[in-house]
């Protein structure tokens, strides 16, 4: 089930005193369930911090983060852990697959963490890997794959437990142009097919151009929103 997202006056700073860096300044935003949104902006604009708050990896200094009716910003560490396990899929810039595990085993990590039956997790992961063009490489280890293949495996991992929200942080940063387009399209297509809200943080114009909803950040604040309803 896809997740609707609402941010209300969210601020986040790192460090203290004069050395403090204000990563986000009173960000308010609303993303409807099932939407695909790209969070764009230059380096240091607060994209990764925004994704961290959405995914319950961190909590804001001020404001509220609500995902699918659940106020993530009010949750404790244990509850945030459970929230991530159940509702969020992550894809990182460098894929960050577990080198000890095969592609299939990597893709079944979230279902395993969730305690889903092994067979169900395997079937879903195999299906996703096949859809991502990795059906014949399920027994390969990450080191045996190209950058594009690794990123596709990471997308399979992000979706394998059926999350309502998929967060991807610079998923195409290390890919060539063709792979970047393929990965972006596959990610958006699979999120749409599985009914997940997709939020991609990037400054890659090849990705920005392919996503209808856009949130442009600058210096930690929302500069403009395109293709999304305005926040209250």
């Amino acid at each position: 089930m896809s997740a609707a997202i609402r941010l209300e006056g969210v601020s986040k700073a790192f460090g203290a005193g004069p050395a403090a860096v204000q990563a986000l300044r009173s960000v308010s935003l609303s993303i409807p369930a099932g939407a695909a949104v790209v969070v764009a902006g230059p380096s240091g604009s607060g994209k990764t911090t925004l994704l961290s708050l959405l995914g319950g990896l961190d909590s804001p200094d001020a404001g509220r983060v609500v995902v699918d009716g659940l106020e993530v910003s009010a949750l404790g560490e244990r509850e945030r852990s459970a929230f991530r396990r159940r509702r969020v899929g992550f894809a990182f810039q460098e894929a960050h697959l577990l080198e000890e595990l095969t592609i299939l085993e990597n893709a079944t990590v979230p279902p395993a963490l969730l305690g889903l039956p092994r067979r169900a997790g395997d079937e879903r992961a195999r299906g996703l890997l096949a859809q991502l063009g990795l059906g014949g490489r399920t027994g390969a280890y990450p080191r045996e794959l190209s950058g594009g293949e690794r990123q596709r495996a990471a997308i399979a991992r992000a979706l394998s437990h059926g999350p309502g929200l998929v967060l991807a942080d610079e998923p195409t940063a290390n890919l060539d142009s063709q792979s970047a387009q393929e990965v972006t399209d596959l990610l958006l297509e699979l999120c749409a097919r599985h009914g997940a809200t997709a939020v991609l943080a990037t400054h890659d114009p090849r990705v920005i151009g392919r996503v209808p909803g856009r949130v442009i950040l600058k210096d930690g604040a929302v500069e403009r929103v395109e293709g999304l309803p305005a926040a209250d």
Partner: protein
Amino acid sequence: MNRFWMLLAMRTLLRRRARSGITLAAVSLGVGILVFLGAVMTGVDDTMVRSTVAAHSGHVTVRPQPGARIPAREFAERWSRLAPPGCAEFLAPRAAFGALLVGGRGTASVEVLGLLVEREGGRTVPAARLVSGRLPDPSAPRPEICLGALAAERLGAAPGDTLRLRLQDGDRGPVRVAGVFRTGIERMDAGTALMALGAALEAGGGALTAETAVFARDRAGSDELLAALRPMLAAGEEAVPWQERLPDLDELIRLNHFSMLVFIALVTVLLATAVSNTALISVLDRYRALGVLKALGARPSEIVRLVMFESAVLTLAAGAAGLLLGALATLVAARTGIDLGHWTSRNPHFVLSTVIHPRLTAAMTFGPAAGALGASLLATLWPALTAARGRVADVLRMAR
């Protein structure tokens, strides 16, 4: 720990073969050495107990209780007729009295020890330490004695010579020197003379005291022997274990055990440090991977369990290998024996033999492996907590 975490732990250990292998080798070698040294210590204890009780009063001594009016002769004759219980190798009734031996060159004050020659010959000290002649013949027409070497020197006596035996209440006539023994224990060599039990009972008269030394079979414990002997005791008799008769030996063995425990503890700490170091390096090496797992929803407790499980598997494998190594070394050494004569030839606790046979005991076999496992788990706790404590919010930033 579900299948996923076990799979991840095993793959991690296998992927880092060199590091896992070095730790495994270090821990297994340490455990192996501890198992072997424990077996050697047990072998030393066995030899000391065997030698010392052979030179004194058996594993258990049966004697009349203080104040009990049991005639020594009656006591010795009754125990001569009794069969040993199953856990005892043999019963050695003895009768003793103080006497003066008079020879051509002088006199010697000795304790004459009457024993069943056919039972003790070759088995107990001093009956097993003849340097010349033979043991007294119970059927000889004239009483025979076997002298300690120092007493023989003082008397100028040799096998075949005749001495006179005097007690406080009078002269008992001539006795023939059948042999000379040397134990290395001065008190025994200078002040003991062996005689056949029958002859001693005749000669000792009212000066006799009697007791029965009971020797255990197959390392039967004192408690087992005491329990088996209890129904055989007559009124006024008591059974005393060697630990009570020989408290110095008991303390020495306790000291051995304590020293070994200290050594085991020190080696275990070293092993635990090696395992902790491996775990810490492994955790720091995988800091991002563990962070990604946490980002995906792994609980900190699951990360702790993962790291602990890896350590436990490594230590268990190393413990098993070390145990096997130590057991094999022990089996080989037990078969050949280790001669400690260079260090123990003048030690009264090795009077029967200086050769030890290492022996495995449950505590000394499994103790080091269990200790290494426990210490390793404790030592892994810190790296595991370090892994679990990392702020998951930093993961995305680190992962960029």
